[in-house]
């Protein structure tokens, strides 16, 4: 009986040497600051950071398939909003790869809609030194990018992707 208990305890200890769940590796993602310039439109009901895999070149690119990440809501009326994709996801998980369109999108609806016409782009991420076209975001394996900043100037809204109102 004593031997049985001894072996049982030994087996349990061996099973548990790894301690169970391990801390994971660094998840890919990014963080930065959104700057808001000018008066917020009264009609805005929700504001999110959105990330698309392919650039929005056609109305069909604004789709659930192409949409890879939506942040939690950005509070109405703020001048500055620091964000991180860690634990700030309304939808999607950031995976390593190349992304074609990162922006701040606003809607006049209370609920989430996936229709292009329900959204207005308030600010676009540009690669450093090139504000002529939407920037490409490259996220390597196990890498977390910082200073992915976006400016939303309500007085000078950016070029809207196809399919808007």
């Amino acid at each position, binding site marked *: 009986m004593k031997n049985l*208990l001894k072996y*049982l*305890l030994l087996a*349990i*200890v061996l*099973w*548990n040497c790894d*301690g*169970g*769940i*391990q*801390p*994971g*590796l*660094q*998840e890919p993602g990014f963080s930065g600051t959104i700057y808001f310039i000018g008066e917020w439109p009264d009609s805005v009901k*929700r504001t999110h950071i959105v990330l698309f895999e392919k650039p929005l070149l056609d109305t069909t690119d604004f789709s659930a398939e192409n949409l890879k*990440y939506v942040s*939690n*809501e950005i509070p109405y009326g703020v001048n500055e909003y620091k964000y991180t994709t*860690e*634990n*700030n*996801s*309304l*939808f*999607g*998980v*950031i995976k390593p790869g190349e992304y074609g369109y990162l922006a701040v999108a606003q809607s006049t609806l*209370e*609920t*989430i809609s*996936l229709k292009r016409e329900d959204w207005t782009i308030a600010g676009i991420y540009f690669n450093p030194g090139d504000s002529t076209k939407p920037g490409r975001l490259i996220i390597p394996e196990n890498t977390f990018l910082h200073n992915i900043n976006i400016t939303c100037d309500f007085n000078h809204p950016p070029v809207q992707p196809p399919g808007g109102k």
Partner: protein
Amino acid sequence: MRKPVKILFGFFFIIPAIIFGQAGTIEGKVTDETGIPLVGVNILLKNTNRGTATDLQGNFELRNIPYGNYTLVASMVGYKKFTKNIGLNKDKVSVKIILRETTLKFNEVVVTAGKHRQKISDLPVSASVISPYFISKKNFIKLDDVLRYAPGVNVTLDQVSIRGSSGYSRGAGTRVLVAIDGIPAFTGDTGEIIWELVPISDLNRIEIIKGAASSLYGSSAIGGVINIITKNIPQKPVTMIKTQVGAYDKPFHKEWDWSDKYRTFNNFTVSHSNKFDNLGIAFSVTRYEDMSYRMNDWQNRFSGYFKSLYKFSDSVSLSFMATGFYRDKATFDYWKNSREALIPSQNQIGNEVHSERFLFGSIYKNKISQRLNLSLKSSLYRSFWKDKSESRNFSGSNQYRLELLANYKFHKNLFLVGGSEITYGTVNSNIFGNKHSNGFAFYAQAEYNLTGKLKLSGGARFDYNKLHDLNPEYSFSPKIGFNYKLESQTILRGNLTKGFRAPTLAETFTSTITSGIKVKPNPELKSETNYNFEIGINKQLTENINLDLAVFNNEFFDMIEPAIDITDGEVTFNNVTRARITGAEVTGKFEIPDINFTAGINYTLLLTEDLNKNKALKYRPKHSVNIQTDYTPGGFTFGIDFRYWSRVEEIDIELVDLGLVPNGDARVPVYVLDLRTGYNFFTLGLPANLFLALNNVLNYNYVEMIGNISPIRNISLNLEIIF
């Protein structure tokens, strides 16, 4: 010893010893392990005809016993036999006896599963009983922690599942009916079980009935029943002061060490009971504080419990019970990620819930005749909670119940149980609306002793349930069962029953927006049902070894689950799942009385399948093992408890895919090893128990629910003073 020999023994030894004055007194006191005096314990000097029984204070006295060596035996149903060698060579010898409860002898344990007292060995279904001393020894504070060690029971966070009946639904509805002294205890809005409401220091036993029991208990008993029986009020005043302190160790991984100090918890309870002629009262108050091993997971609670029993006569009594608490608790929904597993995401920090829950109940009993017993049970479950989220959610509910129960012994072989129940509930909430519900039910069950060895039982219950202004629902839940004593030590049992669970107000009417995701009501929601079959065998292999085997099958129809409506992307509760749970349960218990060693082992196999998706059901481990050992030399107690769950196959993967629970798919098999020791100072004549428990000794990290690391290694010390 044969009779002539006894007479000779008396003639040659006892009579001369009395004549020549060489006689003394053996006196003593008998208590249970918690120090409560035991009344009516049989005291016997072995191989003599001298014996007595303990009085109301647990005391006994044997006078005019000739000097000599004796073996004293103390015995009582439900307790292990106590023997002690005594040398009587002076006027008076005193002994202190502590009787330990036994659950080993299958035919001695009594339960109230059939709404009347029955031996567990007479039931057609599987059942088990947990004693309160196990709760004290393990320093448990909440009942759901106790249930993790019960055979065939799984607990996912705070949601209980018997033989895989439930997964995890954040408290919306329960498939196990929990009752306190037979009074159902689930809230009127979400229909959830609030474990803190159970007065854990005032329990007599916990009965667990496995498999659907809707034929007697109605909705929610679709997976089984947990009936919590509170302590009887003792004949003499008893006061208990219980103080418990504990601390969590540092996390296994340094990356998870978020606090610069050890996190502690403490619990303080004072209880008292007394009898004044025909009136008995018992009450307790408890203060509990837990800093938690996780950030934003603390809680503070004040609890109170009151019970009174007034006996109008030997056959008529009225009892009243009230239990409740105020609690403030921080909210930890999911971890930030597996690298910071003991910290919630930023948006959860600062979230708190204040809750106030109260259950009031009264039971009027009238023994009309030797054959007929009537009981009238009434209760009110009052619940209120509010959170500090942005939308300031709140819900208040009142659930009223009235039940008339009759037990009638038609003749010596036929026993009838019948009753009716009326319910009415109201809810006032910003997410469930201002709603009401009502229902009524009739039930009847007959138990027929066919041959002395074969007992047959059959019955049915009819339920009417109506939620607010929706169409009413009707449910009919029949059952048949048998219990056959193959031989004196082998019992075969079987049961076929239909169960149901009516949707709760929360599942039907929830309307809210959380993080932009809309949860919408579903007035079309209907009851889920199941057909449950079980066959089992129990064998007392030897005086000290008991083995129990059960196989079961559970067919679920219209199982209620939250699901995303693909037409609009909104979440709603639907009757979506046709499921099957098949399994087996083996339980062995053995005892070595000479060295006071007992052990129990249970293995449960669950084969679950969502027949619509051809996948296992969420949060159901396929294999579970529970091992408990107890060694009690003298006043000491030592114990080792181990439990194992295989890695659950299915989880809420959509929450992981949506990024709401980063690394949420991280899960492992569960191995939990606990050690405990203690000393019963009653053996020294001091009115105290001291217990030390070391839980999760290996500091093993596991989750029951995704993104929620279960308690890390912790140690607690519990001192009980009873006088």
